[in-house]
């Protein structure tokens, strides 16, 4: 089975469907996109993730054709698309506000793009019906957009943008207007539809959980630059920088100085009078180089007694407990004031919780749990 895992980005022969070549976009003095190069492959579900103002929406609008790069080129299937206006591109977009035409019915909204192509009436009707089935909107076809719910509107917008079978579908915060429960259901629906249609999806979102769930690869952006482009698990487990580690999920950052202690192994001196921490890293660090240890809270074990065989052990006091139902995050204050978060699954009922505020506890993690980062 492993042979058909979808990883075109690891194949040097594969040619990306979309190529950003040294693209820069300026709005007056402001540089929204700064000399950015990126390849997105066919059938990928690609997520652009970042805080607002990071340039992700500008990237999407350039793909749709509403903005043109100030410098550099964007290629779609090897062809430079910069001079092609939005109405001539094989790219469709699902807008954040959905932008459904309020004067047209659901059916007419979906048919809108197809009508521009002058395709035979029979084919058009078939295609619209197919889209309605795909998005389970059959019984709402005659309604106007204001007569259906937010979740249904979202599906109409998706059906409308998919109707023309674009090479590339852009989704601008597609689930932003939905409540959390509906959003989670819709995420899986989106993945299903992407798989069924085989369309390349590029999604813009500020919600890291959403990006991690739906995407085959995630690009973390900040200030018009790509911080890291990788699969969700690599982004989470092997962040390239503190920014990425901090942006995706929860993380403990410990600052210190690295000393080599064998192949790919380092000792990190992080506080006076404390034993150095051990971490492994494939990137090289010079002796005495300042570094940061990034440790995910769920990889930190919390215990009442000092664990006998642990590589990294620190002692502290429970400062705060965040109870999330299925999980609890313990904020443990070390002797020097540093707060380390440790997460455990609540396998027992809350009344039988092992630790409470002000308890003295031991935190431990393995040598491979932490990621050693230069910056």
């Amino acid at each position, binding site marked *: 089975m492993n042979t058909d895992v979808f990883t075109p980005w690891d194949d040097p022969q594969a040619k990306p469907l979309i190529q950003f070549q040294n693209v820069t976009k300026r709005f007056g003095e402001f540089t929204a996109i700064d000399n950015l190069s990126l390849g997105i492959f066919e059938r990928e579900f690609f997520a652009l993730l970042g805080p607002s103002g990071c340039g992700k929406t500008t990237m999407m609008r350039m793909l*749709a*054709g*509403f903005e043109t790069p100030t410098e550099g080129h964007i290629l779609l299937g090897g062809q430079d698309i910069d001079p092609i*206006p*939005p*109405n*001539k591109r094989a*790219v*469709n*977009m699902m*807008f*954040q*506000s959905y*932008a459904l*035409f*309020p*004067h047209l019915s659901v059916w007419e909204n979906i048919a*809108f*793009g197809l009508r*521009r*192509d002058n395709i035979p009436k029979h084919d058009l009707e078939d295609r619209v019906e197919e889209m309605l089935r795909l998005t389970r909107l059959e019984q709402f076809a005659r309604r*106007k957009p*204001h007569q259906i719910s937010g979740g249904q509107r979202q599906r109409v917008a998706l059906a*409308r*943008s998919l109707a*023309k079978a674009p090479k590339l579908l852009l989704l601008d915060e597609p689930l932003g207007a939905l409540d959390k429960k509906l959003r989670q259901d819709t995420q899986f629906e989106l993945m299903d539809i992407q798989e069924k249609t085989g369309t390349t999806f590029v999604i813009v979102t500020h919600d890291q959980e959403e990006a991690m769930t739906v995407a085959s690869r995630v690009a973390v952006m900040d200030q018009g630059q790509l911080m890291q482009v990788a699969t969700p698990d690599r982004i989470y487990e092997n962040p390239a920088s503190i920014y990425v580690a901090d942006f995706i999920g929860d993380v403990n950052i410990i600052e210190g100085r690295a000393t080599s202690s064998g192949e790919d192994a380092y000792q990190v001196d992080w506080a006076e009078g404390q034993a150095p921490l051990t971490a492994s890293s494939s990137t090289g660090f010079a002796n005495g180089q300042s570094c940061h240890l990034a440790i995910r809270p769920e990889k930190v074990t919390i215990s009442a007694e000092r664990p006998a065989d642990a590589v990294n052990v620190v002692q502290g006091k429970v400062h705060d407990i965040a109870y999330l139902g299925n999980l609890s995050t313990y904020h443990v204050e070390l002797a020097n004031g540093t707060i380390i978060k440790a997460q455990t699954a609540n396998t027992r009922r809350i009344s039988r919780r092992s630790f409470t505020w002000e308890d003295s506890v031991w935190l431990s993690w393995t040598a491979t749990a932490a990621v050693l980062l230069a910056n």
Partner: protein
Amino acid sequence: MRRAVLIAIPYVWLLALFLVPFFIVLKISLSDTALAIPPYTPTLDLSAGWAGIKDFFSQLDLENYVWLTEDDLYWKAYLSSVKIALISTFFTLLVGYPIAYGMARAPQEWRPTLMMLVILPFWTSFLIRVYAWMGILSNEGYLNQILLWTGIISTPLTILNTSTAVYIGIVYTYLPFMILPIYSALERMDGSLIEAAEDLGCSRLQAFWLVTIPLSKPGIIAGCFLVMIPVIGEFVIPSLLGGSGTLMIGKVLWEEFFSNRDWPVASAVAIVLLLILVIPIVLFQRNQQKQAEAEG
């Protein structure tokens, strides 16, 4: 109790300022002319008691309305008014829509100023503005002077006292009534709708035709009614800018009242005018209601 009072206020207002005058005019239209003050009979004499009232009602008849159908001046004037109203509404729309569109597309911070500029002429007397147009349009007026000076024409154009001048005056005067509802419809429109239309394969023009126009339709309809309804009864503009050739019912009405002193016929003209106007007013109300439902 408070509720009843609150509801009563608009009804009393309506009764005092619309229904009572309407019934007075209706009564006059059923009377006969007389050389007296007031210039019609009968007048209600309550001192004669029940017999007086009976006598009063027996003297009312529809002969003025019959007269309106006998003299072709009246129906021609009605028809001509409606025609002028339709044509000038069309031109007002033609001029007003681009202005409203430009305003709605202007940068956010300019919009209050642009709105101000549209409303500003209302701060001057309507009569003075119409007189100003006489100065512009007359044979020796500014327009002719400029055209002669630039060499576009060699003899002055006769515009004043023609129906062209009436159309110019009406379009100028009623333009804000057209601009404001269209502007408010366009301003509310989500800009991403146009982008969505383009994204789905529309050219700019197609997007305008298939999205912008349908979405501003309620504004267009409201603007057209707001212009057409008062223009049908318009009196000042045709009498000041239009010559004797411009036949409008408002002018006929004025002449019946003040030149002929035939109040009953004038009242009949007014009542028929009101009935004609009820049709577009009802249609207008229906449009507004439909729009409210669509938004609700």
